[in-house]
Every structure is written in C-alpha cells, then in structure tokens.
C-alpha cells in the first residue's frame, strides 16, 4: 500500500482510555483449569524462543534448539495426553551469526528468525543493514526481524520510514519481515500507532513491539494500540498483519493477558503462529511450571524443568 500521510497524521490515541481498557480487560476475562492449560499450550506454539545476548555461542543456540523441539518434558506431555511432536515453539530467534548453528539443530518446520539490520540500535549504514538481510537469508533465516529507525518516527518523517521499511522488505524477497518499533524509544502511544501504520503500509508482515533491550518493552497498552492499528489496516486492505510482543513477557499469567488482548481486539483468527508470535526467553519455563501444577496438582521443583 502507498504511504498515506493524511491517514497517519489523523491517528488519535487517548492514553487514559487505553489504560482503562487494558486494566479492565484482563479482569473481564479469566481462563481456568483445562482451558488455562490449553491456552498455555497454545502460547508455547506462539513463542519465538529467543536468545539475543552478547555472549551467545553455538552451544547456547544448540541448547535452545533442543528446547524448541521439546518445549515440555515427555512426562508432562504424557500426563496432558499429548503426543511427542504435537507441540513445538513458533520459531527460534537468534543473531545473524548463529543462524547456521540453529539451522543445523532444527527440523524444517521450526522457522528461524534472525534479528538483522544492525540489531538492536539499527543505526549502522543503510547499505550494511540491507546486506545483512540478504546474508541472513542466504544463511537460512526464514524470517527477518528488522529494527526501524526511531529517529524517523520522532521527527514524524513518515516518508523516510516508509521507504526504509519498504526497501528492507524488498531485500527480504519472499521472506516475512517483522518491523521492530522500539516502543520504549517512541515514548508516546500516538507515535507507536503511527509507526505501526507506516510499517504496515510499507509492507511489514509483522509489527513487533521492541528489541527487548529498551527500558519499556511490550506491555498491554502499547500492544493494544498496535493491535488496533492492525485491525484498522485489515479493514482498509483486507490484509492480515502479524503481531509480536517482545520483552518482559516472562510469566504464564502475563502471556494469558496478552492472548486475551489479541482474542478480544482481533479475534481467534489471529491466534496462531502465522499472525502472532511472542518474543521470549524465560517464559517457557514458567508455562511449564504452570502445566506441571495443572497436571499434578502441585508446584514443581524448578530443577525438574529442563532449561533451554
């Protein structure tokens, strides 16, 4: 879709009303018992299991891939009445230089997402960032998480933002790109909404809250705003854009709140790995702990849950 700056500048977001919606929404819906277990299993299938640390090594990625393939223990699976292989995470998300390592360790049906384009600041030269996308794909990445230039947003330079994202999309060819907004740097929800809209216009397949490196990452408020923009875009174009909250979602309770938010604002159609991913590293352990409690009626010793 072409850039429509009128539409972008007419976007209006009321913070107090957004907060009221999110603070009441999570109390308007509750999932209990086997429903909760089902929602948590679903959440696992949406996780972009992530390691994005400066000290990542091949060994770390290998462990991560093992966990991605078997997100919960055999024993627990049995107790839940599920078969091996019936559940796996949405994707594995790594830095560019570890794509090959991940590829080696993962079956075909678990996609590899790479954070390219000079993650997390996204401020290296445009040429290198574009090149990084091409290289990542060459190395086997199935999805590219790109970082947008937050400066363009703060300057309301929608044209430049649009062109850059569109160029990245072109570079990624037929692969999905997820545009990382860096919500913490954008400060206002109005900026978050406008940036979301411009990225979608420019061809982003997903919009993602943050790198996980900012002080403010995914929360219900910025997520609500992004989801509403996705809905707006869908109503305009008929095209479903995916959503990826990332950073700070580390408990089963929180992830269910996010799922409720998506369920209420966009509906069940969006709750599958094609349109919803959750960027997380420690979430899986907490989900497993909750499932353990559900299946056995008591809380697990943490050493019984395998780390990734």
């Amino acid at each position, binding site marked *: 879709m072409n850039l429509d700056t009128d539409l972008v500048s007419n976007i209006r977001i009321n913070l107090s009303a957004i907060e*009221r919606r999110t603070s009441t929404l999570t109390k308007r819906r*509750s999932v209990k018992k086997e429903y909760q277990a089902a929602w948590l299993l679903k959440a696992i299938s949406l996780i972009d299991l992530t390691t994005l640390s400066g000290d990542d090594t091949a060994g770390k990625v290998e462990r991560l891939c093992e966990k991605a393939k078997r997100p919960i223990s055999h024993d627990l699976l049995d107790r839940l009445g599920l078969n091996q292989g019936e559940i796996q995470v949405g994707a594995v998300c790594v830095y560019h230089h570890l794509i090959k390592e991940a590829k080696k360790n993962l079956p075909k049906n678990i996609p590899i997402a790479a954070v390219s384009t000079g993650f997390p600041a996204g401020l290296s030269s445009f040429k290198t960032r574009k090149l990084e996308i091409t290289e990542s794909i060459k190395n086997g990445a199935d999805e590219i998480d790109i970082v947008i230039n937050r400066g363009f947003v703060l300057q309301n330079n929608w044209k430049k933002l649009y062109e850059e994202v569109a160029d990245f999309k072109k570079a990624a060819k037929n692969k999905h790109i997820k545009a990382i907004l860096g919500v913490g740097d954008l400060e206002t929800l109005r900026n978050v909404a406008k940036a979301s809209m411009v990225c979608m216009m420019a061809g982003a397949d997903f919009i993602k809250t943050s790198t996980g490196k900012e002080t403010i990452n995914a929360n219900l408020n910025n997520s609500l705003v992004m989801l509403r923009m996705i809905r707006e875009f869908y109503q305009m174009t008929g095209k479903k854009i995916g959503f990826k909250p990332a950073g700070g979602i580390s408990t089963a309770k929180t992830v269910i709140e996010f799922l409720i938010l998506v369920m209420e604002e966009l509906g069940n159609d969006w709750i599958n790995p094609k349109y919803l991913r959750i960027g997380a590293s420690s979430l899986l352990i907490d989900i497993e702990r909750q499932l353990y409690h559900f299946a056995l009626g008591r809380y697990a010793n943490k050493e019984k849950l395998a780390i990734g």
Partner: protein
Amino acid sequence: MSKIIKNFKNISYGPAPEDSKDVMSWINSLNNPNFLFINGKWLKSKSSKKIKVINPATNKKLTTLAVSNKSDVNQAVSAAKKAFASWSKTSSDSRAKYLYALARLIQKHSRFLSVLETIDNGKPIRETRDIDIPLVARHFYYHAGWAKKIDTYKQKPIGVIGQIIPWNFPLLMLAWKIAPAIAAGNTVVLKPAEFTSLTALYFAELCQKARIPKGVINIITGDGSTGELITSHVDTKKIAFTGSTDVGKKIIQSTATQEKKLTMELGGKSPFIVFEDADLDSAVEGVVDAIWFNQGQVCCAGSRLLVQESVEKLFIKKLKSRMEKLRVGNPLDKSIDIGAIVAPVQLKKIQSIVKKGEREGSKLWQPSWACPTDGLFYPPSIFTNVSPSSFIAQVEIFGPVLSILSFRTPSEAVSIANNTPYGLAASIWSENINLALDIAPKIKAGVIWINSTNLFDAACGFGGYKESGFGREGGSEGIRAYHDKTLPESPKSSIKINQNKVALPSIDTTPKLYVGGKQKRPDSGYSFNQMSAQKEFICDIARANRKDVRDAVEAASKSKIGTLNNFNRSQILFYLAENLSQRKETFVNLLMSIAGVNKIDALKEFEQSCQRIFYYASMADKFEGNIHNPPIRGLTLAVKEPIGIIASLMCEYKPLLSLTTTISSLFANGNASLIVPSENASLIATSLYQVFETSDIPAGSINILTTKNNELNTILAQHENIDGIWSFSNNSNIRSDIIKDTVFNLKRYWCPKNNRIDWSNESEDFLNEFLNESSQVKNIWIPYGE
C-alpha cells in the same frame, strides 16, 4: 484426557465461576423472613407481609424479606432519635474511628460482599469485585476523614435521616448515604431496595462488629410502603433518596408539608458525545462502559449516543463488531461482561420499551449470539434511525439499550444533548482539549466525563441538574447536604413600628412592572394600593398576572447575563451599590413610611443594603469552585454554575435589605431573576428599577413583578421554564404549597423555615448560603496523559 487440551490449537473461553459456597450458606442461615437491624439488635418485624427475593441469574428464590410496617419504622426512627442525642455529641475523632472501622471491615470481607451482591442483584462479579465494593470502602475511608475534619467547621448535624436507596448499586448506594450522614453526626434509618437487601443485612452485621453505637445505623427492609412510612415520619428531619424521578417527585410532594430537607438523586438520559476527532476505538470502549455497565441499569448511563455525522457510519460499524464480543451470562462467571436484569418486572419493562421503539420505526440491532435463557438476561442492543423526538431517545430505559443520534456541529451536539428533561451526566469524546472544555460547561448536567465515562469517587460530587434531582453526594458538596443550614432568626425585640409621622412620597409616582429592562404596564390593567405603615394610601401599584410572568420569563431567558463573566458581574454590582448610595433620602423615606421604622433604623437598613450589594459584588469573582483529586491521573473540576432563572417571593420584613440581598446574590452568580416583592413593600422594589437602569444591569436579568401577596405563587412555582424558586414567606402552608408545585420541572426550591430571617446578620455562613442556593456544582472529570 481432556478434549479441551487435545484441541489446544483452537482455544476458547471456558467457565470461570467464582465460588459462592460461603455466601449461599450465609443466605440460608438468615431468618426467613429476615430480622430488622434496629438499635444495634436484630428484631423480628411486626409485619406479616413478606417479599420473595430471587437470584436474577437463575430466577430462583433465595429467601424472603420482611416488609417493615409502621410499628417497625417507629421503632427504628425512635432508636435513631435517641442515638442522635449522644452521637451528635460524640467527638469527631471518635466518629472518624467508627467510620474507619467500617472501611476496614468492608475490605476484609470484600470478596464475600462482591459475591453476595452479584447473587442478589445479577451484576457481574467483575463489577462488584473491581468497582462496587472497592468504592464502598473508599467512601467510608473518605468520610472517616470528613468526620475528623468537620469539627473545625463548627457545623451542626440535622438529626435522624431517612434514606431510601435503589437496587442498581445496593451496597454502594448504602455507603453513599450512610457514610456522609454519620460522619456529620446524624443518625440514620435506611431502607434498601426490596429486590436487593442482602448486602445491607450483611453490612448491619459489620456494624455490630465495628461496635457502632446502638441506634446510629438502623436498617429495615421493605417495599415502597415502608419507604413512605420513613419519609412521612415526623422525626425524620431529612430524606436522602436515590431512585426514579417519579418516586422522587412523590416524595417532594408528600414531605412538603413537613418541609423536610431533601436530596434527590433521580433518573437520567445522559448523552455520550463523540466528535470526529476522538480516539474512536477508545470511544467504543467508552460506550461499552457507559451503557453495558451494570446491564445499563445505571442512572447516569450514557444511553444516548450522539456521534458526529462524518464518523457516524464508521463508529456504528466499530460498535457493532465490539458488541459481538460482549458476553452475557452467569454473573458469577469471571468472563462475563453483562449479567442478569434485576427482576422480571424490569426485564418486561425493557422488552416493552424496545418493542415500542421498533413500532415507532427505529431500527433495532442486537449481536448475532443468543443470551442464556435460564435467567433474566437481555442482550446489548442499539437503536439507529433515532431522532430527538423518538420515544426511545426520551424515555429512561434502565436497561442495556442504546439510542444513536447524529449531529453536525458542536452547537448542534449541545442542543441535542440538552434536549431532555434530565441532566445527570454526559460524556464528551474529543482529542481537542479546546473543544472538550468548551462543550463541558454548555451541557446541563451535574457530572461531565471527558474522554471517559462512569467514573466515580468519594472525593467528587455526584448529582443532577434539572429533573435528575438536586443535592450532591461525595466531595465537600456532598457533606454539606448533611449539615443543618437553618438561617439565623431575627431577635423578636428588634421589631417595632415607628409612630412618627413621615412625609409620604409624592402622589405622582406611577410604578410599573419592570420586565426585560423596561417599565411595563401590567397586562391585567389592574392596580392595587400601596399603603403606608400607618395605613395611608400612597400610590397605585401595577398588578402583575400570569401573562406578565410569561413575559418576564421570556425576557429572563433572553437576558445576556449568561454571557457576562464574573468580573463584569462584579463591576455591575459595585456600580449598582454606588448608584443606590446616592439615593439615600428616597429610600430612607420609603422605609420610614412603608416599613414604619424610625430614621436611625431606616438609615441603618439603607447603609446595610449598600454594603450587602458591595459584598456580593466582591463575591461575584470569589465564590469559586474546587479542584477535586480523585485517585486517577487527572483532576475533577467542581465548577459552580448558576441555576438559571430564579423567582423570588420576598417578605415584608427588612424590605430593602432583603431585596438587595436576594437580587445581588442571584446576580453575582449569574442567575436571571424574577423578583416578586411583598405586597406592602412594592414601592420600595419598584423604586429600585430606576437604580438598575443607571447601573448597566443587562435587560431581563432582573425583573420585578409587583402583585398582591401570594397571587403569583402557583404560576411561578409551576412555570416549567423557571429553574428555581425562593420563598421567604413565614407561613409554612404557603411554603409547602410552593414546594409541591415545583415538581413539574423539579425546580430547585429554597423556602427557609424562618419566621423572621435575621437579614442584618453579617456572618459569612448566612451570606454565603444565598450564594450556595443560587448555584449548582458541576463536576468535570478530566483524565489526561500522552
């Protein structure tokens, strides 16, 4: 293993019921019918009349309620009366501790109360748990603070307060009533609604735990007949009522003879205004909170959606898709948005109004899903093809039914919003602060929410304009209503008629009526005699009739006083005082001949009159509103606004001082007035219009209608375009007749019960009472943040 888990790829909401075991066993342990909480004890009702109590979610019987009879009411009131003697003298510190204890107890039993309220009323547990019960606790905390603070104000309590509350927020309304009443040192007899009395009974148990002194809080169950017994009881000095406008009007009429103090929190048909520059998605959520909160059974429900034409279609589309996601059902389920309608009779009422709306040609739309059928459920509904003249745009439905109207311009939004007899609340949605804050004062309603809706807090006043009632609950304005505001009485010894002969004013005077800034001959063509104190004829006075009232009201409504700012009004009053002071001789002579006072007293009254105008001139820009600080990021402006057009029926005593006090206080607050002087003081009033004419008083803002005593009372009290009426008559029959006649448009009335008001009193309490009575408080909620 579970199919739900097996099918985890396709998730859905399952049942999430709140446990109700403890509450059900408490209900089953109640006496059948219940006992009454009187004088700190549980007493069996003397009446044999009973009412069945149901759980609206299942339509099954829970228990039976006793309908208290006369003997029960007498017992409760006499317990309260006895308790008042000591409670009113209990130290404010000690009263504060009792209120604090209640607040604590409510928090300790919050979940129990939430579940009980949900079972009894049918509203979702989400609301009782997150809204009703926390607000109840907040109310007791806030007023514990007031109890402590009041001492420094040296205010007197009133006595026994009869309180009658509705079924839509049973425990919350109890808190709104009881907390301020007992904080101020009053004692209460409260009757919960017959559909929903259970939380009140549990609250009585908490009162016992808190060791509230016996008789301070009495709770008796019953129906309308019990309510009538409470309102008519000679020892209930004030009635605080929340309920329908119809019942409110009946209470005003039935208590008029006893001249009880009243606060009335009545119905509404509140507008929810969406401008094109609003955050539309958030405004849609606002609509959900406005009309589908508590099944729409909310007096301040935003039941008329006014949406700007340019975004109307889009907004309705968004709203419909939002409605598809609402969940109606078992209110104890934690994933339910809309619970059950309180009683079969209410459900039938909603159904019949909706049918009538459809028959009238308005278009009904309901979501595609079906409601459960095992309880009293009604789906969220919207009506389009609605115009201001449609039945469903006018009538208070008290159900989950929204009427949608459109507007083109801000001024059209205002006129549609105000096109209703009600004036309780309004929501304004726009991201343009200039627009939102411009509209807020133009809407005639007691509560305005900007980019928000249905926000409540103990620190903010709540209450209506027009036929939505009078009096405020919450905030400093709410506590005021529980204090004795009797005006000072003039000492008897000060009244003596001067026997000295005084020169009468010249016979050549032709006093006329003063209407719309012009001297006007009376429509009737009749006159009456102005006599002196010594019963000598002075001159003929124009005798106003119904048509002169009509013209005066017309002139008052066209007056420019509403466009003057407070500085303008202040300047005009200063100027008026200056011009009056130059006519000392005229008025001193008039006072001596007409009121029969000696020269010293006449001079004194004249000087005081000039000072009085000066006082209100200075208060015109100093009688200001407040900023309340509810616990939100934002603030609430408690703005003081004029009542509108006020008719004042004056007394004979201190004719010049009473006139100047009344006229200048009304003017200071921006009201237009119709002044009806006492028959015997007519010439003094008409002599004032020459002063008005030289003082830049805008035409129509002060009108003088002379007539024979009490001849215009009924016409004025019944006139539906007059917003308020004051009577300073010392005859209680005359006052109560006026009060009875106010119900046609629920005018504000102020008829002090004095035999002879001490007009020369200069205490701030006395003088500011005129300012309080000539203004009303509007609370404008302004949440902010970017």
